[in-house]
């Protein structure tokens, strides 16, 4: 049997990451497959790390976390992490976040005096030893530990007009000044001096995202309110140095930019339909996105950028330093409602907040590269192989890194040209038999078949469970003169 021709699923497929689309093989895995961990042991495939539930206190169910901020701690040691959540009544809740334990604890009562709803409308940032949050209409100032809150800092303490409630209010700190976006304006807080409309775009424009890049303020804006991003055309990216009378440059972008994010020296833009990067002239699209993605849903750890898109968490990085970065569908959400926010700033940990039925579900991943535990099992589809003549699958050979331990397993399927699945029974073994007691301790096994229809398409599908490390799967086939049968 092993003198037959074969093709192999191995690191050539693993290290290509995930397809952008199901039928376009720019990666090694179909875009509908998740749990792909090629970072734990480069060259081998295993499952993504386990999520451990953390402690949370009254995490809002509507939009559990819609903003989070990182800054120096009051002691000067390590970082301070805070988050802002929203209840079903649009009330704001302020949270202390313990980055090492992942515990998210509400600090004080919810603010019921003003609205905070709408991801992308509010923000959180640390400036000169205090935390600043934006609601839909105000700027809130809090002490470093959140214990003291001035909920109407902008309108009462600084006697300024309310912010425009239908416009996003992202914030940046640049040249030791806090800048607050409000429709087509930037307001500023320089130490204790608050000033309004220090910078302005043309009337009617709305700033949707901001970041600091190449020592300039980059602002994404569009000429109308378009929170859901349904309208396209005429969005722009503006740059400003913080003191000139007007903006320095402007660049055209077709669709609304929901988030600007700098990673690995590159400015990424999350637009309504795509993730792209700014090349100095335009935003070049890299990959499609299915949902609006905001600042709280993007983070980075271990030289990878992570963002969440619905129930999918995508990792953009290179398993082997110096090689090309690839997109990988990483840890899928447990809840069907998908992700709310992801936070990473301590070692290789990540705090994940999902939207749940009654409460937001926060999890802690202790090591973003770790292999999964006993509950992790992912079926992953690979790009189909197409044959110039009908063939019949005769055998599969599976090899793992080491002899299988208890709970580890590999299942091999394939789909033929009719879409029918040839699963474990087809190969003459029970599901997960590769991991049962009879095969414990073994790292290579062969399953032969004697029948089956001929096909010109073999689409491999492999399930890896727990922390099994798959080296390859070989599919042996022989040509046949039989006709294809649909």
């Amino acid at each position: 049997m092993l003198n037959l021709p074969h093709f192999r699923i191995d690191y050539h497929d693993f290290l290509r990451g995930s397809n952008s689309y199901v039928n376009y093989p720019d990666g090694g895995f179909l875009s509908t497959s998740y749990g792909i961990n090629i970072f734990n042991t480069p060259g081998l495939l295993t499952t993504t790390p386990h999520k451990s539930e953390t402690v949370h206190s009254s995490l809002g169910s509507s939009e559990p976390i819609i903003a989070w901020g990182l800054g120096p701690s009051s002691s000067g040691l390590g970082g301070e992490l805070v988050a802002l959540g929203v209840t079903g009544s649009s009330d704001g809740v302020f949270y202390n976040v313990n980055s090492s334990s992942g515990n998210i604890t509400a600090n004080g009562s919810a603010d019921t005096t003003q609205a905070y709803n709408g991801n992308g409308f509010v923000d959180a940032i640390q400036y000169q030893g205090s935390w600043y949050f934006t609601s839909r209409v105000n700027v809130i100032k809090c002490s470093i530990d959140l214990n003291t809150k001035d909920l109407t800092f902008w309108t009462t303490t600084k006697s300024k007009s309310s912010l425009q409630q239908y416009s996003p209010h992202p914030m940046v700190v640049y040249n030791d000044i806090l800048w607050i976006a409000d429709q087509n304006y930037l307001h500023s807080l320089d130490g204790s001096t608050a000033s309004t409309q220090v910078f302005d775009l043309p009337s009617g424009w709305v700033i949707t995202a901001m970041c600091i890049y190449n020592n300039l303020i980059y602002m994404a804006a569009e000429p109308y309110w378009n929170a859901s991003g349904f309208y396209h055309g005429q969005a722009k990216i503006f740059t400003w140095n913080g003191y000139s009378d007007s903006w320095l440059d402007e660049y055209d972008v077709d669709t609304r930019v929901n988030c600007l994010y700098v990673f690995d020296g590159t400015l990424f833009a999350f637009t309504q339909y795509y993730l792209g990067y700014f090349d100095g002239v335009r935003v070049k699209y890299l990959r499609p996105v299915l949902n609006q993605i905001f600042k709280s849903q993007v983070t980075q750890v271990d030289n990878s950028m992570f963002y969440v898109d619905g129930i999918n968490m995508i990792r953009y990085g290179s398993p082997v330093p110096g090689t090309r970065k690839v997109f990988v569908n990483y840890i899928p959400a447990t809840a069907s409602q998908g992700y709310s926010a992801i936070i990473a700033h301590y070692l290789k940990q990540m705090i994940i907040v999902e939207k749940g039925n009654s409460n937001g579900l926060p999890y802690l991943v202790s090591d973003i590269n770790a292999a999964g535990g006993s509950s992790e099992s992912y079926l992953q589809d690979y790009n189909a192989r197409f044959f110039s003549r009908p063939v019949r699958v005769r055998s599969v050979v599976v090899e793992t890194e080491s002899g299988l331990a208890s709970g580890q397993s590999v299942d091999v399927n394939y789909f033929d040209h009719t879409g029918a699945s040839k699963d474990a029974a087809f190969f003459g073994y029970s599901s997960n038999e590769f991991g049962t007691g009879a095969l414990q301790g073994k790292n290579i096994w062969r399953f032969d078949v004697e029948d089956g229809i001929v096909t010109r398409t073999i689409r491999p599908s492999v399930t890896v469970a727990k922390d099994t490390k798959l080296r390859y799967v070989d599919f042996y086939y022989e040509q046949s003169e039989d006709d294809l049968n649909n």
Partner: protein
Amino acid sequence: MAQDPIQQMEEMESRYRINVPDPKAAESLSVNMGVPDPQSVDQNNAQPGKTQKSSPDQETEFQEHDHNGLNSKPVSIRNLKDFFEVLSATPTHKAKNAWDQIKIVNNAGTRELWVYDYLTADWHKI
């Protein structure tokens, strides 16, 4: 940042499109590529005492030899003896090769010809 699309497509072509040799191509070609000729009898299930040798001459494709494996000489496929097995009951096994696929059944004195259909994985009386 993004891979060149042309380079991407070239990589896809080489990995996902697999050329399968024409089984009706010249025998020497399939021998050189190490690809078994599907028209040849499966060597592992050939009748005892008979071996197969690839030869340009289809008439002398098989060899027979005596009990000690000596005195091999070519034999035509037409002269193969005892090729169709005679059974006393209807076959129920899964046929693995051409020899296994055709059986003669002696059903209470009536001879029946049975063939195995690979597509439906069952036996049929002709």
